[in-house]
C-alpha cells in the first residue's frame, strides 16, 4: 500500500518543500517579528489577521501551508527512519498518519474560524 502510492507521497513532499520554503520564513518574519515591532503602519492586530485568515483565499492558503508542510516533514521523517535502519513500514504509517491527522485538523480548525 505505502509502496504502491510512492509517487503520491513524493509529490506531497515536493509540494510541501516548495510551499514551506516560499511562505514560512515570510510568515514568521511578518507575523512574529515585524508586526509586533510595529513595522506595518496599519498594524497586524488580531482582528486584522483574523480577517485575512477567514477570506476564502486566506483559508485555502492556511490549509495548504499547514498540511503540505506536514506531509513534507512526514516524508523526511520516514526516510530518516529508513536511513537509521528501521525495518518495515511502521515509520511510514506513523509519519503519514500524523500528516493525515494534521491535514484533517487544519481543515477543521481553519474552516471553523
Amino acid at each position: 500500500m505505502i509502496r504502491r502510492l510512492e509517487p503520491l507521497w513524493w509529490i506531497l513532499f515536493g509540494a510541501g518543500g516548495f510551499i514551506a520554503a516560499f511562505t514560512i520564513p515570510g510568515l514568521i518574519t511578518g507575523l512574529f517579528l515585524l508586526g509586533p515591532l510595529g513595522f506595518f503602519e496599519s498594524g497586524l492586530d488580531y482582528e486584522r489577521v483574523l480577517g485575512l485568515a477567514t477570506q476564502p483565499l486566506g483559508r485555502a492558503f492556511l490549509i495548504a501551508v499547514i498540511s503540505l508542510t506536514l506531509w513534507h516533514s512526514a516524508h523526511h521523517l520516514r526516510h530518516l527512519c529508513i536511513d537509521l535502519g528501521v525495518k518495515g513500514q511502521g515509520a511510514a504509517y506513523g509519519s503519514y498518519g500524523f500528516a493525515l491527522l494534521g491535514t484533517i485538523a487544519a481543515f477543521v480548525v481553519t474552516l471553523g474560524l
Partner: protein
Amino acid sequence: MEVEVRKFEVFRFRPEEEEEPTYHTYEVPCMPEWVVLDALNAIKDDIDPTLSHRWSCRMGVCGSCSMLVNGRPVLTCNAFVKNYEGTIRVEPLSNFPVVRDLVVELDSFMAKLQSVKPWIIRKAEKDLGEGEYLQSPAQLEEFKQYSMCINCCLCYAACPVLASEPDFVGPAAIALAHRYNLDSRDEGNHERYDAIHGHDGVWACSYSNECSQVCPKHVDPSMAINQAKLTGALQWFKLLPKRSFT
C-alpha cells in the same frame, strides 16, 4: 626525492584460510607524489605478495581501484598519500560482499545495470542507408553529464539506502537509465519504467546526496534520481505520457 615511510592499515580477508577479516599494518617507503594505489602495489611487489587488490588504468578512467580510504569511498589512483595524516586505513568497498582482501563481488551491480537496459532502444531501427540519428548540441547537453559514469561503484559504497536495502537499483544504474531516457535518439523509456519506478527503484532513495559527493566524474546521480522521481510521479498521475520524458 625525499622518501617517507608511511603506515597503511590494510583490510585482509582470505575466506579459505580464516573465519574473520583482520587488519594488517604495513610500513611503506612512499615517494612524495604517490597515490594510495602506488603504496598498495609497493606492498604487493616488495612486502607481501599475498595481498589482493584490483587496479588497471592508474588514471581515474577504468573504475577498477575503488576502495575505502579512511572510511571514504575513493579511487585509490586518485587519492594522494600526502593528503592523509598518520596511518592510512584501506578497506574494500562497503555494501558489497568481499571475495578476498580488497576485492569485492560486483555481480549484483552488473545485474542492476542490465536491468535498466542502458542502451539505445528504437521501436524500429532505421535502415543504414537512411543515415545516422542526428542530434543537436543542445540535445546532447541534456544527458551528457549522466553519460560520464565509469562504473566504479563508489556511489554504491556511499549510499545509506543500499546499506539497509540491498535490492535498491542504486545511483549509477538509475543515472544511466535516466541518461538513455533523456537521449533524443532513444524510444525505450517505457521499457525502463518498471526497473526505475518499481519496488526497488527511485522511490527508495532518501536523497542523502552521498552518491554525488563521492562521484569522481561529477555525474551527480542524486540529481538524476530526483529528476526521474518527478517524471515518474507525473507519469503516475497521468500528467505525462510514459513514452516521453521531455
